[in-house]
Every structure is written in C-alpha cells, then in structure tokens.
C-alpha cells in the first residue's frame, strides 16, 4: 500500500472516471468488440452452445414456476434443499475463493499474484451472479425477500446475514472490476478490501446456516464456517488455474513470465489448500464415527448410498488426484495443472452436493425408531433442477468467453 494516501473526494473520483472514458479508451473498447467478432469458429460454437443452454434452461425454469416447484423439483418435506442449493453454494464458494486469492495480489500487494487479479475479479462477479440466478429458482418468493429482508430483518438469522452480505459483496466486486478496468488501482483496492471483508463474512455465514441448525447433527457445530472458508480458498485456486489456462487458449496466446509465475504460486497455494481440506475430511470421518446420528451418514459415505460420490468425486477427483498431479507438475507444467484444476472443479461440485444432501439424509425422528423413518432419506434431482443448474454453468461459460474477448484477456499492467 502506498504511504501517501490522501483523502479521496467524491468529485475527484467522478472527474477521474469521466476523464478515463475519453475517446481513446472508448475506441479501444470498440476495437475490443470488433476483436470479439474476429474470434475463431470453435469460440462461436462454444458461445452459441452456452447461450442455447441458458435459453433452454430459462424455458424450463419458467415452466417450473408455472407448475409449482413441488411438481417440478425432486425435493420433499423431509429433504427440502436439493441440487439448486448445493449448486448455489458451489458458485458462491468459487466466487468467494476467487475474491480471497486475487486479493492477495491487488489488496495486500503481493506482486506475484497481480497478473491473475482482473480475470479473478471479473469471474467472481460472474460466479456470484450465476449463484444468485440458481437460488432465485429455489426460493419460492424471491420478490418478497427483496422487500422483507429490508423492512423485517431477523438479525439472529444466518440466511439474512448471508443474503445481505452477499448482496453487498456483489456490488463491491463489480465496483472493483470497473475501477480495475479504468486503471484506478487505489479505489479498486478499497473496493476489493470491502468485497473481501463482506465476502468472508457472507461465506462464513453460509457455513453457519448449516452449523447452527442444532437439530441436524451432521452439520451442527463450529466446523462448518471454518470448512467453508478453507474450501473457498481451495476452490478459488482451482478456478483461477482452470479459467486462466482456458483464457489463454481462447485468445490463442502464450503466457508471459509474470503470468507463469502467478500460476506457479496459485498452484502451490492450491496444493496446500487441498492438504488442509484432506485434513478436515479425515477428521470429519473420525469424529463423525463416534456420534450415532452422524455415523449413519458417515457410513453411507464410506460404503453406502453416497459412496461413489464420496470416493470417486469428492476424494479422488476433488483432492487426491489433483494433489498428485500438482506435485508431479512441479507447478510449471501448465497443462498438467489445468487437468488437476478441471478434476477439482468437478469434484468440488459433488463435494457441495454431498454436504447438503447427506446432512438431510437422517430423518428428524430417526432415533425414535418409528416405521416411517427407519431408513436414511434419499433425493435425486429432477430434469428441471438439472436444467437450472446447467443454466448457471451456461451463464458462467458465456460470460467467461465474452469477457475474454471484450476485456482482451484481462491483461494487467504491473507498475
């Protein structure tokens, strides 16, 4: 942080903003859009496909609203949260992670992390937006939420804090991105700091939604908020490597030295975070095995209903294989690191699914020993739910592709 921080006047900021939009920048952006038109064929195919996916999903979502979520979704009274909630968590975990990891560079001034900043901030806005889109179709009355969140807030509710803080977070990150674009780094830094604080607060509240449900033994306890922040950092690293590699592919460019260095440090951080998550997972299993209600879920993960999800996706694809690949790549083999990060993105998606669904699997009256609730509950996503999840993916893919062309590979000049 520079030492000569002067008080910032609003009028000065506005002047700066106005002067930034002079003719050269405008023409520059114009040329970017023209540049976007000159993309190659596969670029347009991908863009078209993701657009089509979003469109088809929008139709399914409208149908779901029309016939009622009870008929359209696979959720029930006993398992009211399904894949839409877990996908929402997947997106906001990624967004928060992108924000945390990129802030190491442009908020805390670690030079090695600077080259990834712009793309990360852009993608953190995109992923949180995708998350909000998905949860919009899970909440029954989203418009009431906008009203009563303001006029009837419940300050003891984690959902209230999570929604409010993530709302603020999205604004801060968008502001940060705009100021990064026009190269106003000091204001961008403050917006980034505000985004980081609100993002971490929001994300730990998301963990606490689960951690504070004291009737749900699998989730209950202080573990959740901590686990959420740690897995956000892991997901953020994976997303940065994944999208940066793809970005350079889309633009058909070679990484320069600072970017390669950035990928190396993010890769190393990613490896550390995988180790942290492995540590958490091992202790979750061991501690869960002595608590009766948790043990039922743990058993279903180890050798039951969730075993494939757990061993193949969560453990192998989400942690073990990428960990080995990162070590083998020595954080220099970018292609290997890309494969590792792609595996992680898929694995983490299932991690979130298991977290939400497995926590609901034990019925409230399980220990009463009644006929109705003598087995673990199950849930499988419906077609509508899968389509809405795809819409979230489509939004991210489309925005990413457009962003690469319009913002010309999110290049950062390092001063």
């Amino acid at each position, binding site marked *: 942080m520079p030492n000569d921080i002067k008080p910032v006047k609003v009028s000065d900021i506005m002047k700066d903003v106005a002067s930034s939009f002079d003719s050269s920048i405008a023409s520059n952006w114009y040329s970017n859009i023209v540049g976007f038109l000159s993309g190659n064929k596969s670029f347009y195919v991908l863009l078209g496909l993701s657009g089509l996916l979003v469109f088809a999903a929008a139709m399914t979502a409208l149908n779901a609203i029309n016939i009622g979520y*009870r008929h359209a979704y696979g959720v029930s009274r006993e398992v009211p949260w399904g894949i839409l909630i877990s996908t929402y968590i997947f997106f906001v975990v990624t967004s928060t992670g992108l924000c945390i990891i990129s802030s190491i560079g442009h908020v805390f001034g670690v030079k090695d992390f600077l080259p990834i900043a712009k793309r990360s901030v852009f993608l953190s806005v995109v992923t949180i937006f995708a998350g909000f889109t998905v949860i919009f179709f899970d909440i029954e009355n989203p418009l*009431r939420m906008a009203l009563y969140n303001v006029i009837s807030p419940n300050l003891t509710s984690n959902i209230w804090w999570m929604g409010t803080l993530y709302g603020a977070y999205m604004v801060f990150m968008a502001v940060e991105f705009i100021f990064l674009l026009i190269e106003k780094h000091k204001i961008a830094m403050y917006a980034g700091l505000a985004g980081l604080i609100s993002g971490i607060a929001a994300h730990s509240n998301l963990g606490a939604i689960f951690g504070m449900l004291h*009737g749900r033994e699998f989730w209950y306890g202080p573990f959740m908020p901590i686990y959420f922040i740690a897995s956000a950092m892991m997901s953020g690293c994976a997303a940065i490597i994944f999208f940066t590699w793809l970005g350079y592919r889309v633009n058909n460019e070679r990484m320069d030295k600072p970017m390669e260095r950035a990928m190396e440090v993010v890769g190393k951080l990613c490896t550390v975070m995988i180790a942290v998550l492995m540590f958490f997972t091992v202790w979750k299993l061991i501690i869960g095995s002595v608590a009766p209600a948790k043990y039922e879920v743990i058993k279903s993960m180890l050798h039951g209903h969730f075993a494939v999800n757990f061993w193949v996706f969560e453990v192998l694809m989400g942690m073990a294989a990428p960990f080995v690949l990162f070590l083998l790549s020595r954080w220099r083999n970018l292609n290997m690191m890309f494969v590792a990060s792609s595996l992680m993105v898929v694995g983490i998606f299932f991690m979130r699914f298991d977290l939400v669904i497995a926590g609901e699997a034990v019925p409230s*009256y399980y220990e009463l020993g009644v006929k*109705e609730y003598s087995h673990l509950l199950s849930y499988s996503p419906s077609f509508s739910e899968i389509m809405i999840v795809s819409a979230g993916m489509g939004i991210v893919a489309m925005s990413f592709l457009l962003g690469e062309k319009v913002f010309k590979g999110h290049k950062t000049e390092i001063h």
Partner: protein
Amino acid sequence: MKFKKMDIGNLKEDGRKTVSLMERREFLKIGLMITGVFAGGTVLSLASNMNKVFASSEEFRKKYPYKPHYSMVILEGRCIDCERCMEACAKTNDVPDYGYRTTILEKDVPDAIGRKREFIPVLCNQCNNPPCVRACPTKATYKDKQNGIVMMHYEKCIGCKTCVLACPYNARYFNEEKHAIDKCNFCFDTRLSKGEKLTACAAACPAGVRIFGDLSDSGSEVYNLIHQLEKPVWVNRPEVGAKPNVFYMKS
C-alpha cells in the same frame, strides 16, 4: 478372592469436613436424577421435568413464561391410530393432502411382551427455544409473546425452507395455496381465538390422547399431569435443547 479386613475405626481422614452441606445435597440430587432416569426410562423426577420445560432453567424455574402457556400432553398408550385428529386438523385448518400439521407415527417392537406396536402422534412442539424462529430471515415465523405459540406471518415468508430444516420435529411444510410455509399453531386462528377451549385434534380424539391446556394454570389437567412424580413424562429429542411444550406419557 480375598479382601483385607478393614479397620473402620482407624481409617485415614479423607477430607469430608471440607465438603459443604450444599455440595453434599447437589451430589445426592445427581444420584437421584441418575436413578430416576434408569428406573423410568427417561424422566422420573420433577427437577428434570422442569429443566426440560423451560428455555432458561434459572429464569423460568418458578413461573411459566406465557399466560396462557399453551401446552399439550400426549397419552401415547391410548392412541389407536384412527387418524380422526389428522382429519379434523386438515378440515379445520385447510391443510392440503400433500402436507400435514400433525400425523401419527408407528413403532413396532416385535420382541415386546404383550402389545407389540405403539402409535406416536406428533405435531409442532411450540418450543420455548424454537430453532425455526431463530433461523427465519424475515421474522415470518415468530413466537407469540402472549401465549407462546409459534405462528406464521404468511405474507412475509420468502420460501427459503430454512425453518423446515431447522425444525427438529419435522413440523413444517410448504403450502402451495398460501405460498408460504405452514405449520400447526394449536388452531389459534381457527378455534382458540374464537373462544374454543381445545384444538381441533384434541376435540376430535375419541380416546382422549391429546390433553390440551394452559400450563401456567395450576388447576389445569396438563399442569397436574406434568407436576407429578409417579408417572414418567418425556419430550421428543430433548438433546436438541429446543424446550418443547408437547409432552408425552404412556397413559
């Protein structure tokens, strides 16, 4: 096995004199509680009943926090699963067929002597420390300050379903017609506020399973059922700490 003979007269001083009278009493109480639990299955002593009723045992030990403090005692052994309570509830409160405010659970105990099956009616426990109320983001569900019933402002419900998961008793469901979460409110809007003394389910039960009344009134039946030592009284899932106001007895 042989033991050395003890010389009781010459035992070493074990510091008994430093143990205060209070500590001895506390110790005895713990002993009584433990034996009570083993003897009765769940609860025998009044002291532990009281701890289960109140949100904060110190604050509310002497008086009940609401007036009237509505409560239900379910005499489980009398239930024959005729489901008239469920019918009456659905009719009175417009409960759709895909949901319920109260239901009857069935428990089979094949190796029991005599009766091998029991029925357990369940409904919202109108907890003194309701997890659903804490979790709701918009105060759409709240605990009535007067009578302690956990109620709904339907128009404020955003349908996030967090309360459904927060509830340890599976007492909530999403009602499409109301476009909000619906739950048992002891028939407050449909009966109690109109001068009726009983909930629809309690009134409809032919076997007198559901005893409904005001726990703060020492003359009421619920008060007398709970404030006795002879027969065990328990609540569902006490470990959650929600402090329910629906109690269970065998008969």
